[in-house]
């Protein structure tokens, strides 16, 4: 075997391994970006209760109403505020730009109502209001997702009322 063939085989293997892991890293980020691109940045998006016409996110739960925020905390932190329903599953989960769920809190774990959460870039300092949960995002961009369980159809007005009161404010780093 000539040295050139050995070099070609090595180059083939090295580039294959690199491409293999780049592909695995890129696909989740691409799918997350696709999701984020259809949402306004640092603003509340109130979704309807999922049905067969809901084609934005795979495996939507028809028993939940979703509210989401496509966040970008690179230049400023955001303050998310929402009332918490009584005796009903309600959670806030945050996903970094590679789809990992790095934070979740539900109604039973929340200590103050309304719930306030300040989302900041990792390593940045903020002056958070009292009773505010401060969460550091490992990536500048991602999605904050609220899940509100619809225990029965006649609860939809209550669910929508809470959804309407959810808000996002852009704050400042110290």
């Amino acid at each position: 075997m000539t040295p050139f063939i050995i070099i070609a085989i090595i180059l083939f293997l090295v580039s294959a391994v690199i491409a293999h892991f780049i592909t695995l890293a890129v696909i989740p980020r691409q799918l997350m970006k696709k999701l984020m691109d259809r949402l306004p940045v640092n603003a509340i998006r109130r979704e309807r209760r999922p049905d067969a016409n809901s084609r934005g996110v795979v495996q939507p739960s028809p028993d939940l109403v979703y509210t989401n925020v496509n966040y970008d905390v690179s230049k400023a932190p955001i303050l998310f505020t929402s009332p918490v329903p009584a005796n009903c599953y309600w959670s806030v989960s945050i996903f970094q730009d590679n789809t990992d769920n790095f934070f979740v809190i539900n109604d039973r774990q929340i200590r103050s109502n309304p719930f306030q959460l300040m989302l900041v870039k990792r390593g940045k300092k903020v002056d958070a209001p009292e009773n505010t949960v401060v969460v550091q995002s490992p990536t500048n961009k991602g999605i904050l997702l609220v899940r509100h369980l619809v225990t029965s159809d006649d609860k939809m007005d209550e669910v929508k009322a809470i959804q309407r009161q959810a808000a996002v404010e852009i704050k400042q780093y110290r």
Partner: protein
Amino acid sequence: MPVILVMIALLLGPIAGYWTAIKAYKRISARASIGNGPWYANLAAGSEKVDPYTRVSVAKNGILALRQSETIYYSARKDDQGNWLNGDKVYRIEGKKPDARWWSITLYGTDHFLIPNELNRYSYNMNNVEYDENGRFSFYVSNTPREGAWLPLNNNKRFVLTLRLYNPGDSIRNNPAKVELPHIIAEGE
């Protein structure tokens, strides 16, 4: 000649890398899953500790899934006998109330979206199933219309069932592969 060899290697290498990644993620993420009767779940889904193959699988089939401390998601593509779920058959989903704060079983097409139907009925959950005197529930999944608790397949041949367990109890968290989960029983055509 050497230059051509190098160019071919640098062209085919990335193609091979991409191709093996696409082929490998399904197999490797399936191997990382636990099975429980017809149900399977990847307990690392959503977590920052997830392997890159499972991360791709979750991004494609269940993006924005919660980590398992909050919710465990089981999926089923087969029945209790190990046969592929088939729209030509009638299935009875039967079981005792799972140990979770809240649970649901949702019917999806193979595209992972809800199946359109005239009843706008896509799932049963702990609040809208009926329990018998032994605390067990049941409902049907089929193309042929049925009275009572029924999820319509609307002419779909293949489908997926997803069991969501929000705030799962200790019996599930400690033994997710063995705890009794709802049964998927084929009852004929």
